[in-house]
């Protein structure tokens, strides 16, 4: 059976955090009483006209700069024509073949284009089901109509559902740090559709792609993409072909239904928007946008952590992709390097951050009770073998609960590491060897894998306070090994 590999591209819509809408002065809002933020323009009244929001353009340029895109000096708005109750003019003002930005990348995924457009209104249902199918009457709230949107389209560079989820996380964090959007999937300020196809492993030609919609959380995105990959592969294995279509993901049943009828795709009849002249990305706008960019975005920070601090790519990304984590880590590192807390290197310190996250979840570590200096101290103590790794985990838990100084907690709880010369560790090692002659014989014979039970005995006896490396050394010494 032929093995297939997935090819995934993402199409993301981001609501921009401007104060007013894309083409009119109505306030951008969420959750306000319906139809309280409308005007002739966003309602599509006869005779109304659009006027471009400069801040939205600036935000669009910032996004383009963050991705290293080519920013078009002159781009055009186009009308995208289709009928739907949430589309007040029956055309959406968008950008077509001359968008604001082209090219660029975020991490190892290339960006195809970034462009500006306006959001649709919100269609709600009066039926019981709460879902669009099965209701008789619906109603429309135009508060959202005209909200500025940026559409980001990637190249099909993503090769697994997990990678799609991870990359979208980086994107979200990047946009959040740019300050251009709330990027909240629950509120709809971040929406993501996926284009999915499969091809025989190792080939280059693209297979037929389908478009997946309605995955409104990261988890559903991953599941939806995975389900579609499986569906396509099954079809191909059955000798059938993949039909180009749009599919709607239903999280409840974890299944996909074709959204459009079998007839041909929309004919949007794009033509240049006559009510708006070309959009100019002037050198002023670009300079202003550049000024507003944060000094370092997540991907750049991750690369720096890897390059300058020697962190692994995975660990670097884990720390860099959340602004609060990165900030906390760098403070701890600074504390370690300048306050003389003892020798600790970045890699060592970095390994403790996930431990902290495990204990505090999504909360900002900077607001936890664990001062960065304390964490740095703890890491230094472990490195100096003053406390065992296991004991240190206990100390961290205490720090999370009460704050304070790591050293003080170790002393108070008596969690200091046991060493061979003091604290009777040597004696415990003797007892360990005596308790399991079989294992001891194995180790003496050169099978180091058998050392496990012996080490485990010592750890139990010392309630984890012994330093694992020290214990191993003592066992070997007592067994006559070097």
């Amino acid at each position: 059976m032929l093995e297939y590999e997935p090819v995934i591209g993402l199409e993301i819509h981001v609501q921009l955090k401007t104060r007013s809408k894309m083409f009119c002065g109505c306030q951008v809002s969420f959750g306000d009483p319906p139809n309280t933020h409308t005007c002739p323009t966003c309602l599509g009244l006869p005779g109304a006209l659009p006027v471009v929001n400069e801040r939205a353009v600036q935000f669009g340029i910032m996004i383009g700069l963050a991705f290293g895109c080519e920013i078009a000096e002159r781009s055009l708005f186009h009308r995208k024509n289709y009928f739907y109750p949430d589309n007040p003019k029956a055309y959406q003002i968008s950008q077509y073949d001359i968008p604001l930005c082209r090219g660029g990348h975020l991490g190892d995924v290339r960006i195809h284009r970034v462009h500006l457009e306006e959001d649709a209104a919100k269609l709600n249902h009066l039926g019981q089901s709460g879902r669009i199918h099965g209701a008789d009457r619906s109603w429309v709230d135009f508060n959202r109509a005209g909200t500025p949107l940026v559409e980001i389209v990637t190249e099909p560079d993503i090769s697994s559902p997990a990678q799609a989820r991870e990359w979208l996380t980086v994107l979200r964090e990047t946009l959040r740090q740019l300050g251009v959007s709330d990027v909240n999937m629950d509120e709809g300020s971040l929406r993501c559709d996926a284009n999915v196809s499969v091809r025989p492993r190792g080939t280059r030609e693209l297979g037929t792609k389908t478009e997946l919609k309605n995955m409104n959380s990261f988890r559903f995105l991953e599941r939806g993409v995975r389900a579609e990959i499986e569906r396509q592969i099954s079809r191909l294995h059955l000798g059938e072909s993949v039909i180009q279509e749009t599919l709607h993901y239903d999280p409840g049943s974890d299944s996909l239904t074709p959204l459009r009828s079998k007839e041909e795709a929309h004919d949007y009849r794009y033509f240049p928007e006559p009510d708006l002249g070309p959009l100019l990305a002037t050198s002023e706008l670009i300079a202003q946008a550049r000024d507003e960019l944060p000094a370092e975005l997540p991907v750049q920070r991750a690369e720096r952590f890897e390059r300058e601090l020697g962190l692994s790519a995975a660990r670097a990304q884990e720390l860099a992709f959340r602004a609060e984590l990165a900030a906390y880590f760098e403070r701890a590192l600074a504390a370690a390097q300048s306050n003389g807390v003892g020798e600790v290197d970045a890699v060592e310190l970095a390994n403790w951050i996930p431990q902290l996250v495990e204990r505090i979840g999504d909360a900002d570590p900077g607001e936890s009770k664990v001062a960065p200096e304390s964490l740095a101290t703890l890491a230094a103590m472990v490195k100096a073998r003053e406390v065992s790794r296991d004991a240190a985990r206990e100390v961290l838990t205490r720090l999370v609960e009460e704050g304070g100084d790591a050293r003080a907690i170790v002393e108070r709880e008596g969690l200091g590491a046991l060493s061979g010369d003091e604290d009777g560790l040597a004696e415990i090692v003797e007892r360990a060897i005596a308790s399991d002659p079989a294992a001891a014989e194995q180790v003496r014979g050169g099978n180091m894998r058998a050392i496990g039970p012996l080490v485990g005995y010592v750890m139990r006896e010392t309630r984890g306070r012994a330093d694992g490396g020290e214990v191993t050394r003592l066992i070997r010494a007592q067994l006559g090994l070097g």
Partner: protein
Amino acid sequence: MSDVRDLTATAAAEAVRAGELDPGELFEAYRARAAADELNAFTWVAEEPPVNGGAKEAPLGGVPVAVKDLFCTEGVPSQAGSRILKGYRPPYTATVVARLHEAGAPLLGKTNQDEFAMGSSNENSGFGPVLNPWDRSRVPGGSSGGSAAAVAAGLAPWAIGTDTGGSIRQPAALCGVVGMKPTYGACSRYGMIAFASSLDQAGPLTRDVTDAALLLRHMVGHDRHDSTSLRFPEEISLPSREDLTGVRLGVPEELTGSDGGVEPGVRERFEATLRQAEALGATVEPCQLPHAPHALSAYYLIAPAEASANLARYDGVRYGLRVDGEDGLLAMYEKTRAVGFGAEVKRRIMLGTYALSSGYYEAYYGAAQKVRTKISDDFRAAFERFDLIATPTSPWTAFELGAKTDDPLAMYLNDFCTVPMPLAGIPALSIPCGLSDGLPVGFQLAGPAFSENRLLEAAYALERAIAFDGSAARA
């Protein structure tokens, strides 16, 4: 009462400002006539005079203005001549109308028009045709037929309309009044119910050139609500020059119908007017606009294409007519639009949708926009040798009601002299230059962008020489 209506708008404004004429009396004189309109020129007439005082200090002296139905007027029906907007009252007023109001020209009434400005005879209105005051068995022209007829018949001192392919100039010609389409962008389009966004422009329809200048002066200007509006580089002056010395007039062979496209009576009046221009000191020579014969084709691709998108919003969801038989959304859309739109509008929506549809864009809309570029280039070249271009406005005088309604193409040919100018975005006006078989003939002048003052000056001088008497229609 009839004394008051003998005054031109400019004279009436002066009289009010001088304290010689009561603006309330002036308003009522016209209001009463408009309310008794037998030409179906009005779709709505004010029931009372405006409340504000201040007419004496205002530049337009309280002289009321008739406004084409497609200009949004807050709280007042604005239907664009269509049943799909029957009774629609907008929550805002078009910038141009608001500016005129502020300058002292209150709203007299809304005038009838071809539906969504699509037509050249005002027979496409959802509210019945308008009759030509010169001969009620004939059309007034379109699409601003109501505005033209109202001014010609003395039912309004002046009026505004819109011109996309000739919809101010052609009815002006057929009704024996002055009509002007300014440079594209000179007047704000905010609140003007859109037909073809890249072509539509508001403009005056008046009894004489001076009135046109005065009205236009208070219409032009940048509007922050309209991203295609421009700051007019100079003030519109009231013309005063009485000769045409040094004015070089170019006459394009392609638009003078030497091949028989123009009615003989119209040709005669046109030629006679050219001679009058020469007598006033102008030079008159032939010029070329090689792509002008294709202007009509380009226009009938671009305008319907833009219209098909502009009219898509009439879907029964938020305002206007809705036909909802509980058959679902698609049926609602299709039936609403089938019932609400007239035949000509449907035809143009179909034509425009087809021209933009997948596979046809380049061949039709794309090609038309290229022809448009060539036409602009032709004018640019012509204006290097000539100050103004002269043509007949309409190839024929007012035709009989129903004479051309069976053949859309024949109706489109009404526009062949007027469409090149909007395609190039340049200003043009029409003045009456005489009668042919008792019906008015229009003389068109066009100039480069922002040449409105020069156009008005030349038109003024000619108007004096021609001394056209339109009072018969006002009787």
